[in-house]
């Protein structure tokens, strides 16, 4: 197991279950796991196995039906301000990028920064720095419609890094990309992990993505069936 030893636990789930309101779909069943600060984790599993549901629970976007998620030791159910937690501690990268179509790349990156006490000049300057970091400095003033899908995902990653989060959650970040672009995005994630020690949790179908991670958690029917090669059940 590549799990870092002696490091602080950033995320922890205890007996996490998620039953959707229609009562028909049990997306998660008694999921308990810990993710340490600075880990690079891939969550894998077939469609409908609960990967994205687990990601939304980890990211304080969705609430579990039972169980608890702890962020830096604090239960999310008792957290006073989940909006602020998402804004400042967690970055999200989506499969479909979700960039605002009327804003340029540099403007899109600034969207999460409105929740920070930064001036317009500071926001713009930081957004340009981030775009440079993801290799997009030459496309700052382009609208998403004028960017390739790989470039859009780079902008989305820059947006996710806008408020210097501790944790980056990515839902199928290479799902819409060709293999070469996917490799470039994976290299970007690896770089973020190695250079700034960012904690990465990536939901993926791709074995290649899983191989790039330190640790792989496999889900089936809402349960953890394997954790970095260790068969759970």
């Amino acid at each position, binding site marked *: 197991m590549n799990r870092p030893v002696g490091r602080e636990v950033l995320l922890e789930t205890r007996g996490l279950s998620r039953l959707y309101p229609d009562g028909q779909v049990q997306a998660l069943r008694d999921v308990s796991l810990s993710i340490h600060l600075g880990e690079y984790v891939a969550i894998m599993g077939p469609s409908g196995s609960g990967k994205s549901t687990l990601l939304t629970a980890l990211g304080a976007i*969705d609430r579990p039906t039972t169980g608890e998620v702890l962020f830096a030791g604090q239960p999310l159910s008792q957290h006073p301000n989940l909006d602020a937690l*998402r804004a400042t501690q967690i970055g*999200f990268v989506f499969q479909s990028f979700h960039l605002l179509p009327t*804003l340029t790349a540099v403007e899109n990156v600034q969207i999460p920064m409105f929740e920070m006490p930064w001036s317009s000049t500071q926001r713009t300057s930081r957004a340009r720095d981030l775009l440079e970091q993801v290799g997009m400095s030459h496309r700052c003033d382009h609208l998403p419609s004028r960017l390739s899908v790989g470039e859009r995902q780079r902008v989305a990653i820059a947006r996710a890094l806008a408020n210097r989060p501790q944790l980056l959650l990515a839902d199928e970040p290479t799902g819409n990309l060709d293999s070469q672009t996917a490799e470039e995005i994976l290299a970007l994630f690896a770089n973020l992990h190695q250079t700034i020690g960012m904690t990465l949790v990536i939901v993926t179908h791709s074995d290649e993505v899983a191989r790039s991670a330190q640790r792989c958690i496999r889900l089936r029917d809402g349960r953890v069936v394997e954790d970095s090669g260790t068969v759970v059940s």
Partner: protein
Amino acid sequence: MHFATLLFKNLLRRKTRSLLTCCGVAIAVGTTVVLLGITDSFERATVHAFEGRGVDLVVIEEGVIDQLSSDLDEKMVQRVARLPEVKDVAPGLLDLAAFPALGSTVTALVQGWEVQGFLLQGLKITSGQGLTEPNQHAAIIGKGLADSLQKQPGDSLEIEGETFEIVGIFESFTPAENSGVVIPLPQMQRIKYRPERVTGFSVVVRQDGGDTAAVDRVRRQISKLVDEQGKSGRMVAQPVRDYVQASGHIRIAHAMAWMTSVIAIVVGAIGMLNTMIMSVVERVREISILRAIGWKKSRVIRMILGESLIISMVGATLGSLGAIVLSQGLARWPAVQGMIDGSIGPPIVAMGFLMSTLLGLVGGVYPALRAARLLPAEGLRHE
């Protein structure tokens, strides 16, 4: 990037829809501003017609709403004139009359005034001559009416079935009077079959050393005056502004202007509501994503309300400009020429912007709250 830049860019996604909504707001605000502006202009013109002659009090019959429905004994004029603090009194008998003009009719105010009274001093004869004799079968008409009826000195004018010679054309210091007719008071009393009766009179109070309390003293004295038989004169004296604000036609004009404005604003608010609800429904996933990346509910509310307020402010600007242009055009229209001066005061424009702000808030608050209620997970479920 400023937050406002985001709001403008959001609105520009649907340019046509945003523009049409702006137009709806502009029509609502424009209607409000032009109607309130005309009423205000009419009120100001009426006040100016009295104050421009130094009139302090207007006396009419007790219990009526304006001079047109008032009926007073002309002898009371002398009793008022004898009050020690009264400087001058000018009685008048007025009524509306219709005159044929180029296939249509023009309605004008016909005033019966004393030929030696101070009211005539406010009229400048621009063509012909003024009224000189009480028994003169003559009329002078305002420049605006002369233009509408295409009359000049020497022509005749039929009033109440009697023919009067137009001896002069006048221009008043107040444009409202330029669309009227003045004949000697005895002639007006005769053709209206109201001998020795007047509809009201204007009183100038002697205010030595700026004694403004004198006006109130005279007002109270007039209301207590009795006729020759010792009966109450049934007169009420009002300061000019009170009289104008209380007069029936001004109140009706105000009520109609407000009623029409409220309807326009409600229609505008419904249009705004529809636009903003559509905008939120179209952006469910996007707003959820904004919530997922940490936007507070209050920021989502600010975004949607900000967008509706931008639409309402742009609409208010367009509507106010349109109202000013329309009002200027209306002031030149022969049928109302002289009745209004076409100017719209800053308070009326401010009122239009205030109503537009309310419209923006009313139209935006429900969609904003609806958007804020969207769950952050909503957008990801559709992935």
